[in-house]
């Protein structure tokens, strides 16, 4: 046993023989070779290049599991106890690779294919045709434009959520009740909100909001007839559901601010507004950014309310990218094009979020 090195964390220090190293490498590369061979055979079979026929791609899964198992075993064979340590994380990594990376690769293959489920020819690679189609697709660009509007609405949601959080953080009566009550909309399914609010309360003849509108003098209330009003109504229903989410995050942030800081500001003569604007708000910026960021991600997935209430109308005014992709997929079985739209949307989101985070980082941590 060695008396040198990291004795605190290493129980045994293995002496790895050259034969054992060879065995480990053989395990890794041999199983990898088997997996590649299986993929190649399946690919050739799929393309009709060889006489063998496979009902499914299940052999590829088995080959991957075989390789993954050999890879794990080989870690111990090659590195002894150090290898055992890697077993704590390696299987999980391989699982994530299987569940995320492979599907993404397949999705890319589908995205560059002409694949309409009704076509007798099945899936066919069509290069950049789907990209060209997307470029000239007014429905997609319209949906993207709408997403910009929907995302900008988050600023208003944030202001309201902050206001509510401030109220709930102050000493008001029945504070616990209001905290629970304000959280309730978040517990509702957006589909339920669509029907209860969009289809029932806003129903133009019998809906209570319509009756109120008539009582207030709006003779023929119409909540989804005008493009701007319809979009605003969707924004409001979505906001009603998710403002509590931002509110609860901001409330947690407010409660984490040391009381002494605000008390010191008051002692220094800061008014209520200055105390908020120059002390509380800056301290809340990290939480705010996190809340807004997560809210943006939620917002970019907006679909259920739109699908249920307006189907994207009137004239595409409320359409979202996700609801449009849903129509391409479900109603038109256009798997290839729909997948490309989803991939492009994913890329746009990743880029936009990255830029947003960079800007925020630069703003919050200026490098002078």
């Amino acid at each position: 046993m060695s008396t040198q090195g990291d004795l605190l964390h290493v129980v045994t220090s293995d002496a790895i023989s050259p034969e054992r190293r060879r065995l480990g490498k053989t395990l890794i590369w041999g199983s990898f070779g088997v997996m590649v061979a299986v993929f190649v055979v399946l690919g050739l079979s799929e393309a009709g290049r060889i006489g063998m026929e496979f009902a499914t791609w299940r052999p590829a899964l088995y080959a991957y599991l075989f390789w993954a198992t050999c890879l794990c075993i080989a870690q111990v064979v090659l590195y002894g106890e150090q290898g055992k340590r890697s077993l704590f994380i390696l299987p999980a990594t391989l699982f994530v690779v299987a569940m995320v990376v492979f599907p993404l690769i397949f999705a890319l293959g589908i995205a560059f294919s002409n694949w309409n489920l009704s076509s007798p020819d099945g899936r066919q690679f069509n290069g950049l045709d789907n990209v060209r189609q997307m470029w000239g697709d007014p429905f997609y660009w319209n949906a993207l434009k709408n997403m910009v509007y929907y995302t900008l609405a988050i600023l208003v949601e944030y202001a309201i959520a902050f206001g509510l959080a401030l109220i709930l953080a102050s000493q008001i009566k029945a504070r616990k009740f209001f905290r629970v009550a304000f959280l309730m909309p978040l517990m509702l399914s957006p589909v339920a909100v669509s029907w209860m609010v969009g289809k029932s309360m806003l129903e133009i003849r019998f809906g209570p909001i319509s009756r109120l509108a008539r009582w207030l003098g709006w003779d023929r209330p119409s909540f989804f007839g005008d493009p701007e009003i319809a979009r605003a109504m969707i924004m409001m229903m979505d906001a009603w559901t998710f403002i509590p989410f931002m509110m609860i995050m901001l409330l947690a942030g407010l409660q984490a601010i040391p009381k002494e800081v605000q008390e010191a500001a008051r002692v220094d003569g800061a008014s209520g507004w200055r105390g908020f604007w120059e002390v509380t708000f800056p301290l809340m910026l990290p939480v705010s950014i996190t809340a807004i960021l997560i809210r943006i991600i939620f917002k970019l997935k907006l679909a259920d309310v739109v699908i249920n209430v307006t189907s994207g109308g009137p004239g595409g005014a409320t359409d979202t990218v996700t609801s449009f992709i849903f129509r391409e997929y479900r109603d038109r079985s256009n798997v290839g094009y729909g997948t490309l739209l989803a991939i492009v949307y994913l890329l746009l989101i990743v880029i936009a979020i990255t830029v947003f985070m960079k800007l925020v980082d630069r703003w919050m941590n200026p490098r002078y």
Partner: protein
Amino acid sequence: MKKHIYDRLVRSGRLRRRDMLKGMGATGALAAFSGVATGTSVRPAWAAAHGALRAEILGIPGVGAGSPTDADWQQVGELCLGPTKEIVAEGEFAGVELTFMGLNNQNLHNFLFRGFLKPWEAYTGATINWIDLAQADYNARLQQSIATGTVDFDIIEMGAPFEGDVLGRGMASEMPDWVKDVIDMDDYVDYLKAPVGTWDGKTYRVSIDGDTHTFAYRKDYYENEEFAEAWAASGGEGAWEQPKTWEQVNAHSKFLIGKTDPLTGLDAHGYLDPLKGWGGFGFYFLENRATPYAKHPDDPAWLFDPETMAPRVNNPGFVQAIQDVLDLIDAGAYPADQINADPGTTAFQQFLAGTGGMLNWWGDVGSSARTSDTSVVGDVVGFDINPGSEKVWNSQTGEWEMTPNVSPNNAYIGWGVYVMATVDGDAQKKKAAWSAAAHLGGKDLSLWASAYPSGFQPYRNSHFQYDEWEAAGYDRAFVEDYLSSNADSYNHPNAAVEPRIPGIFQYYSVAEDELAKGFAGQYGSAQEIADAIAAAWENITDQIGRENQIALYKASLGM
């Protein structure tokens, strides 16, 4: 029968147990004296027994005696086993295992099939495994099965619009001749006869249902003297009575602007067009307007040119239909927010709730008029076939013909039972599958299904013998009014039957998107809207494969 219809009849108080029992006796007597109407006069003794059988099954559990249960379904299945026993020996299918894929809507469809087939399983020795699907999952499940070649079922309950997807790919088993004899296909209403259910001259479908859009209108509007006087004063053409053409529908809709509904006291409105999409199904409602303009009696094709698959959706007939809607939008004839009204809204939130004077829908509107708690029009609603037009576009000559035309829209055609080609390699399994399908589509069993909650509409001429319904205890006036609008649509010589080509709902779906833009004013004219739809349809045809679509379209038309 659709469950709504049954509930309506029962709740309306028109059925009483005593009447029903009297009716049963009368049916028995009727059956004893005459088999002519059911086409069984050739064998009088058998006819008497057969008539008695029909009367007997109509008494299970008895109209008005509560919803039928699994025991009732099994009893009906047992009583209707006669044709099976003539073809299949007892225990002949022992060891055969079949898988049946169908719907579970409203706990009907597959649930009934299970009961009907239980005695069949006991007699033949076969066993059936069930795949139950919700309506919303059906299309995706079927399309994925087709696209991935994973057909894990032997028998399927399927709508005729999907025949292009399934029959066009040779995925179904051709119906043996003995099945045709058992199910008496001559008894089908006209539009369900070939080419529906057939492909390249081969028969595949056992019909179990019929579907059509019928015209529902508010009788109180046309019995209202104030409206009649105002109509005459406004110089309205013709008498103030139920419109028979779309020109009249449009004129009445414009006339009703600013009037007060005599029933609700709110704003009166005319025809209710759904201006929002509905997963493709919304396009059927533009078709209602377009078929009289665009379905020429001499031409079986009306949505596409069968030689080129060039869309006809931008021909003057369809453009006229779109223009009519645009005119009504411009005139302000629709309720507020109509741009956000899908067909479900127009039927259940508007028409039945007292908004609007006219609409087209499937049978549910008629049946819900009195049973639905939110319906206020039960006593003032009338039915007819789809309105006609004063002119029709002739795609062959490329000219309008100024002759009246009528063309009911038999939207969705109806459910059928199909056997998959997966059984063709096994003679015993094939016979078993077809025997099960024939049992479900049998003439007598289907009578029971059309009279009790089943999810299916009447679809045979023998289902429209009102004497049988009356004898069973139904109110004759209602049954005749409601069912005759269906029968007249089914059997109309110029009925519009949709193309059973692959991806037909893709065409409808993309048309809905373009129409929604057009109705929101994003195109310059009706022609531009129609051209945009046509362009999108051309893309779909190219994507699915034009030559293949042409061949399948011709096959679906029986050309």
